């Protein structure tokens, strides 16, 4: 299925995704809820033939975490499907059963953005070391590498009174 056919099918079944293309082999969609995203992802895999899980990109969207899943098909079109979850409760489900190649990227979301991915298969964490402090997610915008003590492996932001 080529780019135009995919956009047509997606916009017909999921108009809220607002699928568009700015390149012959790229399709971008807007952020949506985890439930709508999962439905669209299953549709892309089972109906549209996007069976290759290429990549996951996490982004800091202020109060939310944005998660972009990049899928591909036999025509090598890159389809970007997105979901958004609040930082206060960043819970998503693993898509590892549909896309085993995305498990490693989901582990990255856990370590670097603090997203709780339920249903991840057992396995070592990735990519941070076992001694990494709990609750510190380095790709969130508020996390400042200047406050990270490499010797003690602790995150030490200035206390409020020090900042004053």
């Amino acid at each position, binding site marked *: 299925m080529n780019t135009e056919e995919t956009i047509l099918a997606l916009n017909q079944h999921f108009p809220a995704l607002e699928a568009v293309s700015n*390149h*012959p*082999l*790229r399709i*971008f969609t807007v952020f949506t809820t985890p439930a709508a995203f999962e439905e669209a992802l299953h549709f892309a895999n089972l109906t549209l033939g996007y*069976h*290759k*899980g*290429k*990549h996951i*990109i996490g*982004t*800091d969207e202020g109060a939310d975490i944005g998660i972009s899943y*990049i899928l*591909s098909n036999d025509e*090598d079109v*890159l389809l*970007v499907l997105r979901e958004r979850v609040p930082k206060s409760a960043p819970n998503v489900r693993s898509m590892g059963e549909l*896309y*085993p*190649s995305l*498990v*490693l990227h989901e582990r990255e979301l856990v370590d670097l953005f603090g997203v709780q991915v339920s249903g991840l298969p057992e*396995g*070592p*964490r*990735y*990519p*941070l*070391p076992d001694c990494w402090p709990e609750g510190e997610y*380095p*790709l969130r915008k508020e996390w400042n*590498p200047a406050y990270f003590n490499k010797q003690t492996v602790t995150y030490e932001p200035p206390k409020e009174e020090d900042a004053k």
Partner: protein
Amino acid sequence: MSDREKNERNHKVVVPIGPQHPSLKEPGSFKITLDGEKVERAVVEIGYNHRGIEKACESRNYIQALYIIERVCGICSHAHTSCFCQTFEDLAGLEVPRRAHYIRGIVGELERLHSHLLWLGVASHEIGFDTLFMYTWRDRELVLDLLARIGGNRVNYGVNTYGGVRRDLEPELMEDVLHVCDLLEEKLKYYADLAMTESTLIARLKGIGVLLPEDVKKYSAVGPVARAAGIMDDIRVTEPYGVFREIAVNPVTDDHCDVYGRTLVRVKEMLEAIRLIRIMVKEIPDGPISVRPPRKLPVGEALSRVEAPRGEDIHYIRSTGADAPDRVRVRAPSEANWHGMSHMLEGFQLADVPIIIAAIDPCYSCTDRAIHLIGDGVNQLTDWAQIRALSIEQYKARGIDPGSIKIREF
């Protein structure tokens, strides 16, 4: 019952390998569960080399970020900067001069040559074929010397910049590129013949680390790993970029689906790289090598990809209109090929583990061997003759005189 108790009851042994790699100079940990000599389960643990490159790019401007991106990998540094520049140029709407595309293409194919030669040497070493290891690494020096002349460095050449390239290729240098291609072609044809006829090599590599076409799709394997399973997965063909919009690539595929197939694909790809370099050198147009890029990018995002020596390399940039990226994401080809590693290891012998892992050509950072200091007259570059003289001295000190051995000049 714990895993350990279950294993003891079933007479299974878990062999932890790493975090130092069993063969390559890189950190990676593998927990191999054995039933006798057979690998029953393999758990791959990576991430020891995580350097926070994406976060580092977010707090620097685009020019600084390019220097960081060049250091993602010591082997395919040019592929990473090509992809990153392409993503930037896509967002900025820059039209890169044709000559710059050709120079990027020539350096990219030289990089593919040195990367595959390095891999062939490593793979030969893994199977105890050290003669081939020494031959290929000797040949690789020819390419590295050329790259050092083009960019001033053996691994991070710094050729790419936004809107084009930083180094032009003089006619004399292009003559030398062609000369090295002639020398290498002769050698590579011999290695290709060797790979297809040498019974020991074939027996050692055939039928191990199997990844069938359906598994390639399932685990999204890329590059030579996918092409060795008969899947034509080459971004230069499926989404031609730069010079490959003008010069067609003949993709190399194989249907062995194993380590042997990956070897054949890489050896044949080197011959294809030489063909491409010759065409590019012959047809390179005159003209400027770069256009002035903007300091800031418009608000937006772009996703770009190139065919690195190890496969599809994907870069992503999101801009908020500032002079620094809001988000940078790099999906190196090795990252894609790790997913199928457990599947490739399971069912094979413990002795095959190092070569199966090495067969995906996992990426590791290599460092400069020597530095050429410009300006103060001190030359720290150790050439081939000096290395040979040093080794002879070292052997003499141990009471061995290799001076009488005649070595054919290369």
